């Protein structure tokens, strides 16, 4: 979850009459988890579905509603203007077909505001922009740009001075040498042409979705902004723009429109949507009995507009709230506006009879039986390593089942057997007193259209007098006393077990497992100084067979 750093004193200025405590008490009820606090600073985690909470401006709007200081929707006042236009050339259609934008004027930009805008930009890129693939944003100093602009393509030899650079670089150099170029260059594919925004004087404004030009950099001296968003589809680009526009207006800018034409592009609307929710759905889902007017006022506290018409609540949703898919989302908005803390938990009597799964019941019986014969239960990961599973135990690894890109070397392969894990456990307990007797039940995996999951049961006994007779009597007794199943042992060979001390465990003439003395070389490799006996059987093929 993304994190945003806020300052209480800044929030207090943005919200109006409110104490620090009111703010910190209310943050969680907007869905913002306080991660850490340090005097005036507070870091909160916000949900990726609310990109407007990526700045303190957006959070202030939410808190105003929740605290009842300002309620109802945030209306975007965009002044119609014909001064600012972007012409889109059809050659961008195959690479990054859409552009949209807005002008924000007469704002005050201090260091903190720049910082907030930067983190917003990053979070938008990462979240709804899907790492700039779906949509990406560029914020520029308007006064450094001469309109009209053209959104077109250029070849990779095109040069300009990119942000944070002092000299001209070609597109190829930017992609090969800068961090952003290396991180996002792959979004442009192998095409010789790349998207570019040029101004009237053919100066480069932006090379989306990679980097802006240095000339348009926003500083504390900047007063007027130009924001452009490019993307793979028009709706996603406009969604992103609506968040930025809302935040900039809240930051004190006045908005002016940008006219966009060409290649299926058009000027952004940033319009409201209307959506209806039935008050009975609200009350049914929340378990409340709210009047229509209470529902309306709750929605207003969630910074939406609403009015009731009979049982229906007609809701007006600003463009930046594109996280609202349907009426159920409005139910949540009612709950938030009403206040989650005001919902009293109730327990309704169950009309159903609870039941433990029969597999769980049988496994519990097996646990109890094994404890009765003096075995301690172990638990190991299903996702383990080649070393534990195959190398140390001398097992065939050709059919191993691995996962991609594991961050942990010890967890790369799904186990097809439980016994190797228990041997590993013994090796880590050689300083503990003997006898050491352990068992484990768990899922094992093998490749089979696509994967077969079975439940296995393994046990291990290590002490100076451990012997085959002991371990055989354990498995026979456990299965017989626990489940009335009688198994036999038949001579077998297995690379984990010592020759002449190994048998397959047979049920009704079908082998279901293996038992014997662990090969002394394996025991030695594990630096265990006592003989070790072990077994493993498939429970899916025996006691769990239906």
């Amino acid at each position, binding site marked *: 979850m993304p994190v945003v750093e806020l300052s209480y004193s800044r929030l207090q200025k943005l919200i109006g009459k409110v104490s620090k405590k009111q703010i910190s008490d209310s943050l969680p009820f907007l869905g913002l988890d306080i991660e850490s606090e340090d005097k005036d600073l507070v870091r909160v985690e916000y949900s990726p579905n609310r990109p407007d909470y990526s700045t303190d401006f957006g959070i202030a709007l939410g808190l105003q509603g929740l605290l009842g200081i300002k309620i109802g929707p945030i209306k975007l006042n965009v002044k119609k203007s014909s001064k600012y236009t972007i012409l889109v050339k059809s050659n961008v259609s195959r690479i990054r077909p859409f552009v949209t934008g807005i002008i924000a004027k007469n704002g005050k930009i201090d260091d903190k505001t720049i910082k907030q805008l930067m983190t917003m930009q990053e979070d938008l890129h990462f979240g709804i922009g899907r790492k700039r693939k779906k949509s990406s944003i560029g914020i520029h100093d308007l006064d450094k740009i001469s309109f009209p602009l053209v959104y077109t393509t250029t070849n990779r030899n095109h040069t300009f001075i990119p942000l944070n650079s002092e000299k001209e670089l070609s597109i190829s150099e930017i992609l090969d040498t800068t961090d952003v170029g290396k991180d996002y260059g792959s979004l442009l594919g192998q095409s010789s042409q790349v998207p570019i925004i040029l101004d009237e004087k053919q100066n480069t404004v932006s090379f989306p979705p990679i980097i802006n030009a240095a000339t348009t950099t926003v500083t504390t001296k900047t007063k007027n902004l130009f924001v452009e968003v490019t993307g793979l589809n028009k709706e996603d680009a406009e969604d992103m723009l609506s968040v930025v526009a809302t935040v900039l207006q809240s930051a004190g800018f006045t908005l002016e429109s940008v006219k966009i034409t060409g290649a299926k592009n058009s000027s952004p609307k940033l319009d409201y949507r209307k959506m209806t929710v039935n008050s009975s759905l609200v009350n049914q889902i929340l378990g409340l009995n709210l009047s229509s007017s209470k529902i309306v006022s709750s929605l207003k506290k969630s910074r939406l507009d609403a009015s009731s018409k009979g049982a229906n609540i007609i809701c007006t949703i600003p463009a930046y709230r594109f996280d609202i898919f349907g009426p*159920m989302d409005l139910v949540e908005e009612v709950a938030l506006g009403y206040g989650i803390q005001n919902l009293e*938990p109730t327990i309704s009597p169950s009309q*159903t009879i609870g039941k*433990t799964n029969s597999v769980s019941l049988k496994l519990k019986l097996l646990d109890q039986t094994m404890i009765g014969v003096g075995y301690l239960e172990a638990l190991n990961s299903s996702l383990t390593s080649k070393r534990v599973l195959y190398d140390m135990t001398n097992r065939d690894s050709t059919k191993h089942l691995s996962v991609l890109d594991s961050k942990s070397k010890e967890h790369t392969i799904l186990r097809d057997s439980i016994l190797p894990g228990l041997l590993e456990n013994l090796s880590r307990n050689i300083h503990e007193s003997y006898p050491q007797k352990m068992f484990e039940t768990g899922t094992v995996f093998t490749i089979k259209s696509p994967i077969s999951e079975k439940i296995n049961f393994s046990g291990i006994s290590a002490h100076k007098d451990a012997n085959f007779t002991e371990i055989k009597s354990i498995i026979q007794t456990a299965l017989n006393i626990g489940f009335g199943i009688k198994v036999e042992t038949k001579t077998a060979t297995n690379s984990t077990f010592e020759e002449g001390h190994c048998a397959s465990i047979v049920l009704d003439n079908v082998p279901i497992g293996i038992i014997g003395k662990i090969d002394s070389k394996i025991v030695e490799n594990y630096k265990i100084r006592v003989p070790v006996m072990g077994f493993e059987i498939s429970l899916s093929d025996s006691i769990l067979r239906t």
Partner: protein
Amino acid sequence: MLQVFHDIEKKIIISLRDNLKQTPESLEKSTHLSPDQIRRGIEWLKLKDLAIVFESKSSMISLGKNGIESFEKGLPERRLLNLLKDGPKKLSDLQKELGFVFGPSIGLARKNNWVESSSDEISIKNPPSDLPGEKTLNLIGNEKLSKDKLDSTDLSGLLRRPDFIVEDVIKTKEISLSNIAKSIKISDSVGDIDVEANVPEVFVARTHPLKDTIDEIREIFVTLGFSEILGNMTQSSFWNFDALFTPQDHPARELQDTFYLDKINAKKIGTPEQISKVSESHKKNWRYRWDINEARKMVLRTHTTCVTIKHLAETKPDEARIFSLGRVFRNEKVSYKHLVEFNQIEGVVVGKDASLKNLMGIQREFYKRIGITKIKFWPTFFPYTEPSLQTMVYNEKLGKWIELFGMGIFRPEVTKPLGITQPVLAWGGGIERIAMLKYDLDDVREFYNNNLGWLRSTKKCQ
């Protein structure tokens, strides 16, 4: 203080009270116990700080061949003096009488001026009543005596004479009672044992502490009317993500968060209707090209919700309470607070009367049963539920609120395409986190270390 002792201990203490310092041998005699019983009894008493054992080396003195002869017949010089008692005697007669000892006895007597000789006769001059060595010789007699009980000057003369004295160096133990033992009262009931003595530790065979927590949680939900369902840990992306309205380009689906199985894809992922309706819902709401091949990719389930939603899609119940419990996986760096594989419980309530307040009520009841009463609910976000909440519970030990189960109502975008018509309340969370609170652990990895020291000592009841 009255203390119960073993019979052996009792006899030893009583004997030592009569005779304060003894050897094991003397104790054997006085108590009529076997050497082994004495050895064990002394050992027990020593452990209880009741007996003091002083070990020392000492020389034991007994008579050799010539010594025994002298003890029986007198020292050679005594025999000489005895022959002279009745007046002087001729040397030749004396030689006859004394035999081998004639020479040494005459030599010694002359040197000490006990006799005087004139021409061929010898007569008594001035002998002492006790000759040197005589007392010691008689004291030893047929016994074996400690060297330090003998007069060392008297003994030294005898030691110089051949075959008179045999000296053995032996280790001896001297046992005495400690001050506590001197005053202790001894219970005299026959056959009593020391019930207060320390005993060796026995290691209990047991189920794993985490398994105990899992069983406890399972039990709670069964008694709340929930039935358990099971499902595979390996799942197609379709059930783990797509069916739960998680778009295919969502960050949670990336390799760095989710374990994908290398080169393994599911052929059959759902009914044609399920696939087409789920893909429609994605296209309409998330605006992207839904790819069935992406949905076929097999993953290690990231939650047990895939098991429940699949079950609901198959059974479409009007009313149900079900839960699923098992291992889930996240591609994380393993640390004291993160595992790649952990247990999750996840449950749903289906019914026309199911409401958010009911869902909160079930949570409150569950927490109450595991001993947590201070809880609150905060809004949160999950891709597949709306509204969504999380429970915060107050941990007294840590003195802070901790996030536990998440919950919500399945989105219509999830239920509708799968033909589920009733509202579905869903909740779930990790079990290790609860078990860590229960067993007061700081490091979640302990659950999977199988460290016998921990497993053997952790208390069952927490």
